[in-house]
């Protein structure tokens, strides 16, 4: 694909359609709320003074967690739907082309770029191959894991006859051993997502400055602009 000659004189390409962009920012916000409230569910803030009936702090923290959780879940389902009906970029993070040599060559090149070995990154319309792998493993699977374990924990409170219990808690809790283990893994994978965020935000800003295409503005407007006129490497 990259060998075919195409002219790329157009200044910008429309890459991320509105649903992808809206999902990105809503999802980012939901995850931040989930991490903060989740942390406080694990280690609550200092005791509230006064009567129990005057306070509902843990109740509100848990409510915020669950509200953000449902936004996170519905958003992810919507994003999966869009992967089917949206443009080819909408599918990228779900289907890394792991059987393509060209793809792995791209990952390798990107690694060299980050290790300061390659002088110049390749030019991509969509995500670069390294980003695809990284988002697929940490974010897509991390999200699926959090949704499944989260609903399993939710089902415990919602009770035996709830759909959360029937479809999630019932098999997930014995799978992990017991409820406490589900808590522990739900908690650990929060840190996987936090690591993702640290690296993702850093890389997004770094690439915005140092790569050959626009990044942050693309996730806002949907349009990818390029800093040079040479061919792109992902052949779109």
């Amino acid at each position, binding site marked *: 694909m990259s060998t075919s000659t195409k002219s790329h004189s157009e200044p910008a390409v429309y890459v991320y359609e509105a649903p992808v962009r809206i999902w990105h920012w809503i999802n980012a916000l939901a995850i931040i709320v989930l991490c903060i409230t989740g942390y406080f569910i694990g280690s609550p*803030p200092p005791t509230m003074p006064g009567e129990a009936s005057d306070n*509902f702090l843990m109740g509100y923290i848990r409510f915020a967690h669950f509200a953000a959780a449902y936004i996170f879940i519905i958003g992810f389902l919507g994003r999966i739907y869009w992967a089917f009906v949206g443009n080819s970029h909408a599918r990228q993070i779900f289907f890394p082309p792991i059987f393509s040599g060209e793809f792995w060559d791209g990952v390798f090149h990107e690694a060299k770029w980050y290790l300061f070995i390659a002088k110049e990154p390749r030019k991509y319309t969509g995500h670069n191959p390294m980003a695809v792998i990284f988002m697929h493993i940490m974010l897509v699977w991390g999200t699926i894991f959090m949704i499944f374990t989260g609903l399993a924990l939710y089902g415990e409170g919602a009770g035996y006859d709830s759909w959360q219990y029937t479809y999630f808690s019932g098999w997930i809790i014995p799978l992990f051993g017991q409820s406490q283990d589900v808590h522990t893994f739900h908690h650990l994978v929060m840190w996987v997502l936090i690591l993702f965020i*640290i690296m993702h935000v*850093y890389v997004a800003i770094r690439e915005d400055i140092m790569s050959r295409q626009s990044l942050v503005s693309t996730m806002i407007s949907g349009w990818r602009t390029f800093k040079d006129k040479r061919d792109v490497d992902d052949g779109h």
Partner: protein
Amino acid sequence: MVETFYDVMRRQGITRRSFLKFCGLTAAAMGLSPAYAGKIAHAMETKPRIPVLWLHGLECTCCSESFIRSAHPLAKDVILSMISLDYDDTIMAAAGHQAEAIIEETIEKYDGNYILACEGNPGLEQEHTGGMSCIIAGKPFTEQLRHAAKHAKAIISWGSCASWGCVQAASPNPTGATPIHKVPDLGNAPIIKVPGCPPIAEVMTAVITYILTFEKLPSLDRQGRPKMFYSQRIHDKCYRRPHFDAGQFVEKWDDEAARKGYCLYKMGCKGPTTYNACSTIRWNGGLSFPIQAGHPCIGCSEDGFWDKGGFYNRLTSIHQFGVEENADEVGIAAATVVGGAVAVHAAVSALKRTQSKGDQE
């Protein structure tokens, strides 16, 4: 004429009045309407008594201790007479060869009709290494268990030992203590788990009474526990729950919050992850339960509760990382490493960029 539980009780000097009380209490414990007390009484009076073989493997006898301390001082006698008739090496009168003969007799006489109540579990390690543990009448307990299990109508795994392994199965588990449902070659009798260390007496008696009254096993959850007692967590019915929701916690022993009876979450309470009936049925005739006495739940009815780090830590210790750390400690360590790497990478990137700009000029 067939012997009923009622006959046995009367013979042991239990009055009709305390018998009816027992029926009422049991119906209440099972969460049934008062009308069922009559059904239970009727079953006890008319149905043939269920023979119970009560075997003991690797255990501490806390289940028996709990059982004979059932709520009502009168109910206690009822219950004792329910089980001591056949075989229970702790509380039966017979001893030695005579006792062992009773097992054979029961198995022959009631083949396929008795309940095997198992307290404790077998140490399977001896099957591999030839080491010795839990030898009963000259034979490993495993053999006795297998023999009795193959002819039983149903097996009740009393307590966390039989249900999950409990402390004798704690890492590194030198005797190979194995919960009943994981013991190979046990036959096909259904297994009812009644976990707890020990289980609540009322729960134990209710399980046997249920089987007698309704002539079927109670409905079990996916992990094999009777739903009527193990479908909710301690936390779901804990009377300190309003303090949890309010964010009012005991921060250290004997602080003001402890005196006020606030939630024990921060003291490591496992109520939120423990399925048991303590917060509803309670202990010692409904008198109290650990949390009411000011101590956090240690999760004694949950699988692996003995190997999950301190009883007084809210977050579980994770052993896989060599040192004992909880999820936050692991996460913060990883985030520090990655954050540091990002900072260094950013600095090098900035340096390179100024260099290459310099080159271009």
